[in-house]
């Protein structure tokens, strides 16, 4: 998790000679520079995409700029008109309920209750695909979809980048 490293290096003043960067912002940069060429024309059926902003990555680490990059990349992948945003979003987004070790801690019923707001928020978008860059979010968003009877597909971002990739 990027936050654990980024915040850990800062908080414990750990000496290091490298820079910590989000791969999402790099995807966006590489697309803008033409190093990655994506074409959304594969999406002939108009699959609708939405996104889960990871709390630790967005609100607690890099803020809205990384959330904007995330949206930029998704739109490059699925086509601008096929992205439906959640509300509230970016730094003001709701937690999915899977963070903080909740998945390992074992209070599953509580975790599902925690995820109810996230389910309703995602369900309201009507999206077919929910992109979850964070692994905890990924597991939780998949679990609440099943628990509350959602129909979306929960995936990482990388699968779709490769799908839209032009070589």
């Amino acid at each position: 998790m990027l936050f654990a490293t980024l915040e850990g290096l800062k908080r414990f003043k750990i000496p290091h000679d490298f820079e910590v960067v989000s791969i999402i912002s790099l995807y966006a940069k590489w697309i803008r520079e033409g190093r990655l060429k994506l074409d959304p024309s594969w999406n002939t059926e108009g699959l609708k995409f939405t996104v889960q902003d990871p709390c630790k990555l967005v609100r607690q680490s890099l803020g809205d700029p990384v959330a904007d990059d995330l949206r930029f990349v998704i739109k490059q992948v699925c086509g601008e008109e096929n992205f439906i945003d959640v509300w509230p979003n970016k730094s003001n987004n709701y937690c999915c309920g899977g963070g903080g070790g909740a998945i390992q801690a074992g209070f599953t019923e509580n975790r599902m209750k925690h995820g109810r707001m996230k389910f309703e928020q995602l369900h309201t978008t009507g999206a077919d695909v929910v992109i979850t860059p964070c692994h905890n979010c990924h597991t939780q968003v998949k679990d609440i979809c099943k628990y509350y009877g959602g129909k979306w597909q929960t995936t990482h971002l990388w699968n779709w980048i490769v799908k839209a990739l032009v070589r």
Partner: protein
Amino acid sequence: MTEIDLSPLRAELKKHFLKSMPNSNLEYCLTCGLCASGCPASDIEGMDPRKFIRYLVLGQDDLLKNTNWLYTCSICQRCEYACPMGIHVGRFVYELKGMKPKELRPKNLQKSCELQKEGNSTGVPNADFVWVVGDILEEVHANEPEWADLKAPMDKVGAQFYLNQNAKEPTVEPEEMVFLWKILHAAGIDWTYSSKWWDGANYCLFSGDPKDWEYVTRMQAETVDALGCPTYINTE
């Protein structure tokens, strides 16, 4: 005559936090409830961020130390984001998780951290990680001629990017790694994995001991620096 329990008046936790976290703004709470109204964990275990702060200020120490809400609140910090007084609710939750004796913490959570301190959160041997990466790469080479030149470098000194891989992929769904490799390859990126401290997760952030969190971060940092990579990335 019934003896009255005066211990809550002592509010030991509050005293402790005011001293250990003088910037936490604990006493500024207006009880407005903005925190609770936007918290998806409100009402679970009879708790919400506003109540949590009230209990703390009013010295209900035992209740706070024992509530399972500590493991439902994800320290997402939305309450702090909404709080007009800048109260760091999440930091109290984090501290309380750390105050709990290890043997009373959720077993799997603590175990993930203990394994993390040995190298990765799943306990998979480093050699298995290296093997899985090589095996999956071979499969791609054999089955996808258009990706015959795909690479998954291991311990490449001086690579531009150091990639930490979440342990879930090599252990549960190794084919997911291939997407990432393809993207990096297509963009012409010079990158490497490491054969040790390769797990991008850090469960010690969640178990509550800053020392454990620090140790894992330090080991990861030393690994990147030993390889001389100027940029650290992981999967998000």
